């Protein structure tokens, strides 16, 4: 199974996430699209780890394959932390401007 299919899939998911972030105005959906993008990255990381596991050079380095997977583990850690803080912010935002529409957050205007 060649790696390019997985890369294709991961890129497709990533771009869907990007499109989501760009087109939607509801901050929660945007936040979810970001999670989606993160997952695409995780998928690709695991795919690469398996690719390295398959390739001969990997045998030399003891745990090159599983490094990537640990990396994914840590990404999940960060994602969890990020979501908790992010959702807190969204709640606080909702409390202030009674809507989750990001366009109302334009107090940084020029």
């Amino acid at each position, binding site marked *: 199974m060649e790696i390019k299919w997985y890369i294709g899939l991961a890129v497709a998911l990533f771009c869907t996430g990007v499109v989501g*972030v*760009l087109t939607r*105005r509801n901050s929660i959906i945007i936040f979810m699209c970001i999670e989606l993008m993160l997952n695409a990255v995780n998928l690709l990381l695991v795919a690469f780890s398996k690719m390295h596991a398959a390739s001969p050079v990997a045998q030399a380095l003891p745990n090159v394959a599983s490094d990537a997977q640990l990396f994914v583990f840590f990404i999940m850690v960060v994602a969890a932390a990020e979501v908790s803080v992010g959702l807190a912010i969204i709640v606080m935002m909702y409390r202030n401007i009674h809507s989750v529409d*990001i366009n109302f*957050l*334009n*107090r*940084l*205007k*020029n």
Partner: protein
Amino acid sequence: MSNVLQLVWLIPALPLIGFLLNGLGRKMLSKTMAGIVGSGTVLLAFLVSLYVFFQVKGGNSHVAHYFNFINIEGLKIGFDFQVDPLSSIFLLIITGVGFLIHVYSTSYMHEEDPKDFAKYFAHLNLFVFSMLLLVMGANYVIMFIGWEGVGLCSYLLIGYWFKNTNYNNAAKKAFIMNRIGDLGFLLAVFWLISKTGSADYHEVFANLSKLTTRDITGITLLLFVGATGKSAQIPLYTWLPDAMAGPTPVSALIHAATMVTAGIYMIARSNVLYTMAPATQTVVAVVGLATAILAATIALKQNDIKKVLAYSTVSQLGYMFLGLGVGAFTGAVFHVMTHAFFKALLFLGGGSVIHAMGGEQDIRNMGGLKKHMRITHITFLLACFAIAGMPPFSGFFSKDEILAAAYEKNPVLWGIGVAGAMMTAFYMFRLYAMTFLGNFRGTHEQEHHLHESPAAMTLPLIVLAILSVIGGFIGVPEVFMHGGHRLEEFLAPVFAQSNALIKEHHALSHSQEYMLMGISVAAALAALAFAWNKFSKYRKSDKEEAGLGKVLENKWYVDELYDSIIVKPVLAIGKYFNNVVEKRGIDGFVNGVGRAVNYGSRQIRLLQSGQVGAYVLMMVLGILVFFIVQLFL
């Protein structure tokens, strides 16, 4: 003997000390004190130069070196003085005539307040100092320092009454024209240095082989440009008549005796170069003669005493350049000396007339002053005879020597020269007759006020009159008395090198000389008599001058010509640059940059729309571009 020459530095130092005393102490010194300091220093300088004259009489010259003015690798210019027969003659003229004029101006400037009085004398002393520097310099650079100093002092002195804007403009005009001339002089010096590696007279004249003929003609032409600027020849002479705005003693000293002769001294000093460049010599002769005739024609119709004398100076200088042009260096120097005497006398005489008439300068409102001003009248008359070239007077000997040399060169030059001499005699005696003969045409109050000038003014007049009369006998031509021309013997060593170069030297036969002298004297006498009786009966008439007379009165419209050709275009260009290039170009550019940044930032500000979505979109586009550049380009 050499130890005396060690004192040479004293000559310029004394007027400098005078300048410093008067200049710095002008508030403390009383008027008499300032006068004494001013005249005293020049008198001492005269005595020392007299002493030096007798040392140098034997023909030996001496170069005294004091310090290195410029001493860089490849160029060494020392601050050193050279004393030889030529420079000692000029020393005598400058300090002698200078002293007389100083004494004269102590009384002429009497009613000025003390501060200005001391300032006036300080400037006069500075002028004498720089003139001495010019004359005694042993190389072109020191001469150039003097050259510039003299220009500066003429500016200061012309613009003495600086409150009057016309006098200021005259001073500026004089200074600017001199500067134009100086530029030519400077270029010549640079050319010389670049070719021969040094500016000392000895060194330059020693290794002339380094210079090609093209170099020499170029250098001499440029030097001549400097001379025309300083000695008011054809292209750059219009400043001299306007320089009459200064006090009369100033005109006497600067614009008659000393400064204007600087050009002649410079050419006389570099006579070797000129003899090796025949083309330049013809140019010099032609320009000199043309100036002489032009100035003489203008002087015919001038009604202001000082204007007439100014144009006569220009004319006489034309004759001197004619002399130099035809190779009669000693003749030119001789004419310089005699001209210094009688022209200074004429100016000082005119000054005392103006003094008496209470500032009136227009001769049409004068007349019949003979009865009131005895001494001025007699001295003025003697000077007129001298300048007209009547035999016993000095003018005759020097002018005829030049005319004789001109005849040797080319009879046509002689013919025009004689015509010039006729006109000189005519306008001088027109001036004399209108001021001193006939009946008084001024106002009663002026008539009542008429009186002879005080002793301080009349004494210099008398001394100068004596010099004008006997001045000619030091250069009696061969034809009258064998060995009579002592001045030629005296200056022989200076011009020895160039005389050797002149191959053909066909002297005139005695009969030819007599004939020449006869014709010129007769012509002058006729013009003199005609002017005498025509203008002694002069009646003031207010009809307008017509035809050629009007043209002459307006000085051939030369000033207007210069204005239209040079001044207006330059001003126009200046204005153009100011408005178009400066305002629209540079300012426009600078403001344009400012406005562009302003406009640009306003547009970019719109980018900060506050829409988070827009920011993210831009970010993604950025990443996109980055990928494309990175991966595909």
